[in-house]
């Protein structure tokens, strides 16, 4: 009772201060676990996020499930690293020697309620040298993460970072560093790539950085996907570019001449940096099945709808995305609509499902264009997986469809001049073409885009373009602009192949192309990915969607351009509202047929979440970022900055800054040390790092 009264006060007095209270989901029947399909086909562009905080669940039962995967050989011995350029664990046969790095450990703690995740990431920096250092670390986060909290910990003191205009924050940080104050700065290089700088770490001393973000999970056919990226893959930057993300050997900082640069450990070297991860899931309805193909995990079942998942200590090298999928009871989640109201007004997020009637409608003839990335980074297992997936896709072609196969690396080439009919003979030709493909050279994705979209469209067919790539490029905006320019009536489906694909690029490509994105991890089933793709394209999408919001008066709904609804793939909408949520009516067209259906919103399907305002603001920023790819009027960056500052969010134009002004450290600020990272699991160093 007392707590309730105090919380009421907080909502009254401090709602705008970002204080958050988590909401509880609904619950139901007992669960069952089994083996499952692996690839979760997700809807892109649903991007988004919001905010909560809270503790992990109290464990009420002590049931432990261990879902193990085949163990891989860990990195072996290494040569000694040069001092002052980062720490690493050097393992020599018969002898182990550890040279510490400034980044010791990353601890990730997530909490999922319904389809909204709040995740706290703690990066623990420590100075092993005899001089002061500035540590610099380029790291990934999910592409739809709304980072809204930043805390620098010095000893037992915690200093909350402030969101500021990026340029201003960079200047203040540089000055604080120069004057000897402990300071931290976090900037965004891409929606999924960030740089952390921590200045004036004294010898033997530690500084922790804690950040918090919210994001929405992806969902398809009852399967949720919680993903946490652990390493930035080595990007290819076209000649002449300087705004990319360079990939250089450890100790060769600055050699890429790119604005952002990642230093990679050589094969056989191993960083002493490790990672721990825990995620507590409250699905609201019973969790029936759960799988993690990427990592070895332990799960503790708290209740049928609540599970705590922990990353095994045996799998603590941060060199691949953590991808957890789980299936809930029934075919829809319980809290379809989540709202929050404070002094700024009402916010909502809704997961809108396609009508069941789509499943019974037949597709129109298609023109399928398969585009395979054959660059050096795909060499090895990613290429094997892609070829396997593509061959399955070719074998599933229907009579009456046409198809084309395009490969690209430094240049693009294709099966034939024009798409050909899916006859048995042509499919055999396609299979033989795919068999011969090898990974080598640069990633001139623009050549693949041109080859896939730059030829005359057959008006009798729906053009579906399927990209299979790791997305390791540094010129994402150029690629997205080209897609916007050349897309026409095509629909794009992208497959992120490998252990740590560039999901930002893949998600945006599919979003622009009104399609969907899927992962094919190193241990995922290509068959499931391809079958999911065919399920999606085998029925017409619901287009020209109009929504009657009933008792809700809505405004500023994002994404600004309503997506088509594809079978099995809901879309997340977020907006401002007044009034009372009730039934929502959806009108659209599937092929030539009008479709109407109602989404009932009872109290059972409405949740409350303080972080929804953050989700909304982040999705608004994502929408404006999309506009930036084709609207260069110059006003959009300022608009993004305004929204980010008002809601305390990270963006390309804002940065988190924390300075401990209570005490100057002695002497010069010392040397800058970049934290080197391993190349992602399955990626070859020799074909990717310059």
């Amino acid at each position: 009772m007392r707590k309730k009264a105090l919380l009421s006060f907080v909502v009254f007095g401090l709602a705008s201060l970002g204080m958050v209270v988590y909401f509880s989901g609904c619950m139901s029947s007992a669960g069952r676990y089994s083996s499952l399909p692996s690839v979760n086909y997700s809807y892109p562009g649903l991007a988004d996020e919001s905010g909560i905080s809270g503790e992990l669940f109290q464990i009420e039962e002590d049931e432990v499930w261990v879902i193990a995967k085949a163990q891989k050989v860990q990195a072996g011995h290494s040569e000694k690293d040069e001092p002052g350029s980062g720490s690493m664990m050097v393992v020599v046969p018969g002898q182990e020697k550890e040279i510490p790095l400034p980044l010791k450990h990353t601890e990730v703690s997530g909490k999922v309620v319904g389809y909204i995740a709040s995740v706290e990431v703690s990066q623990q920096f420590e100075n092993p040298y005899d001089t002061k250092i500035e540590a610099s670390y380029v790291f990934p986060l999910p592409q739809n993460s709304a980072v809204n909290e930043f805390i620098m910990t010095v000893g037992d003191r915690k200093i909350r970072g402030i969101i500021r205009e990026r340029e201003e924050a960079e200047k203040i940080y540089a000055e604080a560093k120069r004057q000897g104050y402990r300071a931290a700065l976090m900037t965004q290089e891409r929606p999924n790539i960030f740089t952390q700088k921590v200045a004036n770490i004294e010898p033997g001393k530690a500084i922790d950085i804690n950040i918090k973000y919210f994001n929405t999970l992806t969902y398809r056919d009852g399967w949720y996907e919680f993903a946490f990226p652990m390493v930035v893959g080595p990007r290819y930057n076209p000649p002449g570019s300087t705004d990319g993300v360079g990939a250089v050997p450890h100790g060769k900082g600055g050699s890429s001449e790119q604005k952002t640069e990642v230093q990679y450990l050589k094969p056989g070297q191993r960083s002493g940096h490790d990672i721990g991860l825990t995620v507590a899931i409250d699905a609201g309805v019973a969790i029936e099945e759960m799988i993690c193909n990427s990592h070895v995990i332990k799960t503790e079942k708290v209740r049928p709808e609540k599970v705590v998942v922990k990353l095994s200590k045996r799998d603590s090298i941060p060199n691949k995305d953590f991808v957890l999928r789980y299936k809930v009871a029934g075919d829809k989640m319980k809290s379809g609509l989540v709202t929050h109201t404070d002094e700024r007004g009402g916010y909502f997020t809704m997961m809108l499902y396609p009508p069941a009637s789509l499943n019974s409608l037949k597709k129109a003839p298609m023109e399928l264009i398969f585009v395979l990335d054959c660059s050096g980074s795909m060499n090895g297992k990613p290429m094997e997986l892609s070829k396997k997936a593509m061959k399955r896709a070719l074998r599933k072609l229907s009579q009456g469809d046409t198809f084309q196969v395009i490969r690209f690396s430094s240049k693009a080439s294709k099966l034939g001049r024009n798409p050909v009919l899916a006859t048995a003979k042509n499919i055999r030709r396609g299979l033989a073409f795919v068999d011969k493909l090898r990974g080598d050279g640069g990633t001139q994705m623009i050549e693949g885009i041109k080859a896939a979209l730059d030829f005359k469209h057959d008006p009798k067919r729906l053009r579906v373009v399927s990209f299979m790539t790791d997305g390791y490029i540094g010129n994402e905006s150029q690629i997205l602009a080209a897609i916007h320019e050349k897309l026409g009536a095509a629909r794009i489906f992208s497959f992120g192949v490998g252990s740590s694909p560039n999901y930002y690029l893949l998600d945006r490509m599919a979003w622009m192309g009104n399609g969907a994105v899927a992962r094919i991890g190193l241990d995922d089933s290509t068959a499931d990915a391809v079958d999911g793709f065919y399920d999606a394209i085998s029925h017409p999408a619901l287009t020209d969607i109009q929504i009657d919001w009933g008792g809700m008066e809505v405004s500023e709904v994002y994404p600004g351009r309503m997506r088509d609804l594809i079978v099995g793939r809901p879309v997340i909408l977020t907006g401002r509202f007044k009034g009372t949520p009730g039934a929502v009516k959806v009108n659209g067209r599937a092929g030539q047929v009008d479709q109407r259906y109602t989404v009932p919103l009872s109290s059972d399907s409405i949740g409350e979440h303080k972080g929804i305002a953050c989700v909304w603001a982040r999705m608004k920023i994502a929408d404006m970022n999309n506009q930036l790819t084709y609207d260069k009027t110059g006003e959009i960056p300022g608009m993004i900055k305004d929204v980010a500052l008002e809601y305390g969010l990270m963006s390309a134009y804002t940065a988190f800054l924390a300075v401990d002004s209570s005490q100057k450290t002695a002497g010069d600020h010392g040397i800058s040390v970049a934290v080197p990272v391993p190349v992602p699991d399955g990626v070859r160093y020799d074909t990717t790092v310059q």
Partner: protein
Amino acid sequence: MKKFSVISMLTHASKVDFQIENQSLRCGKQASKIFKTLASMLAMMVAVAAWADTPEKGDRYETPTIPPMRFETLGIYIDAGDKPLAAYQFELTTSRGDVKIVGIEGGQGVFSKPPYYDPAAMKQDRVKVGAFSLADELPTGKVKVAVLHVVVSGDLEPEYAVKLTTAASKDGEKIEAEVRLGI
């Protein structure tokens, strides 16, 4: 600038070297060698002195294009008398000087966690900070609730003012309290 000076010195030293060499034609080889050696040493000493005066790489700092900055801390204290303090919100204003918040730290005891701030207000150059505690044992009397880390730009000495927007008890009831700035 420093680099340019060093290059000038070295160029000058070469000229001296050349003149000495001409003299050697008149005064003999041995004298020439001595002069030559001395001149070379002098040139090297000048160059080394010039380099030594140049800051090390880590120290090198161009004259900032931004106004001079200094960093300060401000302690915020709330005194609610004999009433236990469970929650508060205050607003910091400056009537003079260019001040920006660069970090917010907690205070004592139950208020040691870093408080929250209102980003929308911060965007308008207003600093609203608040926190609450659900602890059973709440502080009474004067308590340090927050430390603000600030950067001051320019020569003006800032004048701060802090206003308590609200203070509340465990039951969520508003209580009378005073807020003060300190160290």
